[in-house]
């Protein structure tokens, strides 16, 4: 599997998760966020139904709103009658461009850590709130397992040396000007060694 293949499968998988979640509950929309492991921010990854696809990639600060609580606590939650609540409307508008009446959200848990949040907006096919929250939780568990396997494949691929050194250099260049982390200084030292070796 090439890197592009894995990227393609990941996009398909994320899209499939939100499509299934939306159809399970006859919902107006479903969206998925993944937690940025460095900042704790929630990154909007995919949407099905109502909402702005162009917002994919946008970020919500850690610990805000329903998705923030779900990520921090690792627990699912249902909030109804939220359209009157400014904060939700803003959250939802930021993430999907769609203002819902009801939000249902469940964590994607990988081992003991929450790696993402799955949201379902305005469900209509509801048995009862208690059943809904349980059902979404079960589905989120399955989705998280699938995501986990894909991330493992990606991780093992990343450990193989890059076939194209120019692409590698470009990527290093893009990553370097980030925050001043201790790992950056170490990376720069390694680059100096590489430079030294190539000059011989």
């Amino acid at each position, binding site marked *: 599997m090439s890197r592009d293949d894995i990227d393609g499968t990941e996009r398909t998988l994320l899209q499939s998760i939100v499509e299934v979640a939306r159809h399970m509950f006859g919902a107006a929309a479903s969206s998925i966020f993944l937690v940025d492991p460095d900042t704790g921010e929630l990154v909007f990854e995919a949407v099905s139904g109502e909402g702005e696809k162009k917002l994919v990639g946008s970020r919500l600060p*850690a610990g805000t709103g329903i998705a923030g609580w779900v990520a*921090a606590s690792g627990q699912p939650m249902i909030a109804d009658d939220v359209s009157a609540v400014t904060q939700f409307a803003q959250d939802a508008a930021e993430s999907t461009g769609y203002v819902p009446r009801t939000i249902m959200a469940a964590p994607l848990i990988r081992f003991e850590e929450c790696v993402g949040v799955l949201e379902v907006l305005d469900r209509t096919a509801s048995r009862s709130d*208690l059943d809904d929250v*349980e059902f979404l939780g079960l589905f989120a568990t399955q989705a998280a397992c699938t995501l986990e396997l894909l991330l493992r494949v990606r991780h093992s691929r990343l450990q193989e040396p890059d076939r194209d050194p120019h692409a590698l250099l470009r990527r290093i260049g893009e990553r370097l000007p980030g925050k001043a982390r201790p790992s950056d200084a170490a990376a720069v030292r390694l680059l100096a060694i590489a430079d030294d070796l190539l000059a011989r």
Partner: protein
Amino acid sequence: MTSMTPASTPPWRRERRAHFPGVPAWGLATTRQSPEPFQVSPLAEVTRQWAWDGSDGTGVRVCVVDTGVDGCHPKIGGLERSLEVVSGDGGELLVADCHPVDPAGHGTACAGVIRSIAPGASLTSLRVLTDGKTGTGDALMAGLRWAVDEGFDLVNLSLSTTRSGFRESLHELADRAYFRRCLLIAAAHNMPVVSFPWTFSSVVSVASHDEADPMTYYYNPAPPAEFHARGVRVPVAWPGGREIRSTGNSFAAPHITGICALILSKHPWLTPFQLKTVLYLAADNTMTRTTP
């Protein structure tokens, strides 16, 4: 042996003795020494009327360990204190005063439920879920330890951690709370996963039933969730002076916390095991209904 503890301090809040007078180590030589007198709430006829009739929670101090509480919300009606767990200079976790705000909304919802049942109780907010990544581990431990030491009567914990690394220290802390007459009321996880501390016997664990009455609750003879309280489509306070309806065990636990505040306000000398017994005896499926 000298002790820094004032004589008015009740036995359960006293500092631990450095050594013990034999018979064996934890015993008491009752042939020559009378058991120490202490306040007792007898459990003669426990009915709902006995348990909390006429009580509004006055005098009971409750700590809501959560995402913070919006202290300006009309359904909260002010807080005794508002605190958060922060990182100190050396990276150690400290508890510091903070503005009564709630960026997530969850803590406000829980506090509002407690207030709706026990309007006279004193509420303190302790924010431990501040960071999207690590909120349920170290900060929870540091915050809960502070709340237990601070001498709150009740601690509402509508959260839990799935990290097994915290199990032992949480267990110890829950036991310590129990012996200090600080009752932890913990929400069961909403998914079928193992998490703590709601699964410990030293706490009162709560899951949801789907009825609409806030005072209806059931004892569950098949724990770990020991009680079922209202947790479906609960009208809850939300930051910004709003109200929404929310579903989850998170909102069932504060119903029991509120009911515990009513009971403790009327019977302040109940121990955690007595209080749990009163909860049991006054539950909808166990209470003896008195015929008029």
